[in-house]
């Protein structure tokens, strides 16, 4: 196998270890008589007791552990998929996307879910401006440059991934976009409206979860939404019930948030985003803390939001999640955007497509293909012959390989195109960067 094909064997979990990314379950949760002349002693004592009541009760309530955990996601509200293993496409077996050629039976395992058809994403400037656009955006904390001269363009109506390892500056960029912290340089616009100059106007069309969804734990989910709807104004209050229904929290809406699991808080966070009927949703690590079933539901929700024509920008360090959910992606590393564009284009540009050939005589077939000089290389594996396609090769080349093998009397049982995943591309990009002096 050539170096270009090694990527097909790397699993998502392996890649995380290679990249040093955090494990999936890492949650940023950190988620109080005649006279009554009183002397100082008794009064101070009373104060201490009363203060103890005030702070103690609050602290005790705040510190009370959640009675429910992530595995509640879907169990009470919605039934989980039949088999967690089969329904958890984020598992270790998930990173390779396969496109089965027409007229050819799929070879090998068929357990991987079919790839979602991505929307066409244009990086031509739209009439109303980009959903998110930054020029030279920079944010420093002392000498540490968290966001470094970022040039970002998020097309409207797309699901856009902002991908990078932990500490790459993803959350800081989002906070800067939303005006939660001031930028040190550069310009920003949301939905074509400059921020922070017209921040209120811009944010009226934006819903966001930053870092993790946080709510007043002593209030119910509905009361928390009331608070946010009151701040948002307009018709937001009327969208509380529909939003709760959409995220499947209607039955638990009148329970205190302190009793919610992480997954339920994530869903409540999405519900809070929907209060303003946003054209743009910015979700920071939306899969954090979710179990596989929860991730599946969150993924479906994100896709459905994008299907409604909303722009969904999500940051993540989970490569396969971004690949499954998003149409376009920007890769960020050490505060700087190093690549951005439609995922399919980026992966094609990486030139890592190959074909797995299931045939009667793999060794002879390899010699035949090598002698014909039509492939970038061949290699024999336990699964059969792997033929690396040259960069930019058309699908007709796969048919040509089939014709030549059949003409040589070699029985061909199957041909499977194996495309590099976003993860593979990410690895190749970051590897090249690492090689730069």
């Amino acid at each position, binding site marked *: 196998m050539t170096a270009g094909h090694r990527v097909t064997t790397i699993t998502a979990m392996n890649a995380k270890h290679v990249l040093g990314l955090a494990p999936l379950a890492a949650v940023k949760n950190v988620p109080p008589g005649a006279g009554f002349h009183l002397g100082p002693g008794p009064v101070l004592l009373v104060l201490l007791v*009363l203060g103890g009541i005030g702070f103690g009760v609050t602290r005790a309530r705040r510190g009370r552990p959640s009675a429910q955990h992530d595995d509640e996601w879907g169990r009470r509200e919605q039934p989980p998929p039949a088999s967690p293993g089969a329904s958890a496409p984020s598992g270790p077996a998930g990173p390779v996307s396969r496109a089965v050629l027409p007229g050819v039976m799929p070879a090998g395992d068929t357990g991987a879910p079919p790839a979602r058809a991505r929307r066409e994403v244009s990086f031509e400037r739209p009439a109303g401006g980009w959903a998110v656009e930054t020029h030279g955006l920079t944010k420093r904390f002392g000498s540490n440059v968290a966001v470094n001269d970022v040039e970002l363009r998020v097309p409207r109506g797309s699901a856009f991934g902002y991908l990078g390892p932990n500490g790459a500056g993803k959350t800081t960029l989002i906070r800067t976009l939303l005006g939660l912290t001031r930028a040190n340089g550069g310009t920003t616009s949301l939905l074509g409206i400059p921020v922070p100059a017209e921040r*209120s106007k811009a944010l*009226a069309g934006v819903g966001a979860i930053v870092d993790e969804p946080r709510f007043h734990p002593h*209030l119910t989910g509905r009361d928390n939404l*009331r608070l946010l709807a009151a701040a*948002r104004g307009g018709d937001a209050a009327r969208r509380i019930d529909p939003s709760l229904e959409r995220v499947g929290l209607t039955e638990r809406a009148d329970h205190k948030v302190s009793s919610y699991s992480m997954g339920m808080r994530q869903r409540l966070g999405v519900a809070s985003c929907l209060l303003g009927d946003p054209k743009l949703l910015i979700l920071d690590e939306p899969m954090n803390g979710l179990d596989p079933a929860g991730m599946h539901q969150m993924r479906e929700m994100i896709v459905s939001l994008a299907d409604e024509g909303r722009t969904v920008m999500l940051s993540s360090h989970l490569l396969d999640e971004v690949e499954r959910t998003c149409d376009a992606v920007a890769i960020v590393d050490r505060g700087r955007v190093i690549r951005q564009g439609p995922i399919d284009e980026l992966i094609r540009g990486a030139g890592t497509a190959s074909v797995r050939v299931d045939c009667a005589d793999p060794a002879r077939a390899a010699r035949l293909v090598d002698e014909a000089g039509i492939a970038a290389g061949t290699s024999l594996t336990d699964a059969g012959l792997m033929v690396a396609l040259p960069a930019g090769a058309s699908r007709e080349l796969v048919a040509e390989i089939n014709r030549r093998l059949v003409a040589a009397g070699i029985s061909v049982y199957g041909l499977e195109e194996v495309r590099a995943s976003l993860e593979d591309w990410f690895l190749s990009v970051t590897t090249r960067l690492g090689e730069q002096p």
Partner: protein
Amino acid sequence: MTSPAEALPTWPLIATKHLELRKRRGLMITVAVMTIGPAVLILALRLAFHLFDPAHYGPAGDPDVFDSITNLTAEFGFIIAAVVGAAAGTTDLNDGVFRYLVITGRSRLALYLARIPAGLAILIPALAVAFSMVCLVTAYEGVPQPATVSVGNGISVPAQLDQAQLQTWVSAHPQQAAQAFPPSPVPGSGPGRPTKAEDITTEYTNYTAAEDAQLNPAANEMFKIGLWLALEVVIGFLVGLGLGALTGQRTLSTILLIGLEIIVTPILARVQIPYFLNGQRLDVGIAMDQLRPAALAPATGGGPGPGGLLFGGRGALQIPSMPTWAMISVIVGWIVVWSVIGAWRMMTRDA
């Protein structure tokens, strides 16, 4: 830039901020205990004592009881107002909700201003309940109001006189008046030096002071005292809100303001520090004590006592009074400065 209209909080925003505070059970218990609690406890005990041992314990509506509970309510009122203010100023930050409120696009100034009516809507009713109980008990369970007031040297003067009526009584009873209102020494004079006869204004002041101590306050005086208590609570809340928004830490803000109320202010009220008198007068507690309605006797009965220095000493000012304009300036200054600081921090803070 935020337009003035955008900076104003909407009614739903105020209502939900009120809800957010009201649903904090621990805080609400503390508010009830510190505002209504003292009145309920003292009045209940006094009513019970009077019921079982009327010879030793007078009615609950005694002027001393009124003064004691009111002074205690003023002290606790400031403290609990500071606690609620600090909670209102920090709760969104501590719960991590502030950033989500900012993301709504709502003016940060409006978010800050919404907390003021929301917090006061909790404190003022609680204070009103407590003070109303005291006033009702004083009015209906009080001692029979005497027809005369005992002034200087035990001389009895008819009660409820205005200044002109007092002057008429003084003219009609010169010998009794001389004993009731003995002339005071002329400033700078020594023993044996001539003294200046009291003018009618000073005599009337002494007369009303004796009236306040011996008679229950009239309805209009109770109203004034109620307003003064409300002002005390408003100041405590706004300072707590501003300090909480500035520091972002509820506990620190609360401790600082309790320290101001029960330690710093009584000391500054009692101890005249050379060359620092005007500095002492900048303490809002001292200004508020000077604004204290005349019908409300100080907690220590007007003089220094063993328990007065650290707590309850307010009202017994041992430093010279300041001009009225200065007193009002100090009070308004505290309200404005802390509100501006809190709002500024809220508007510039990273969310």
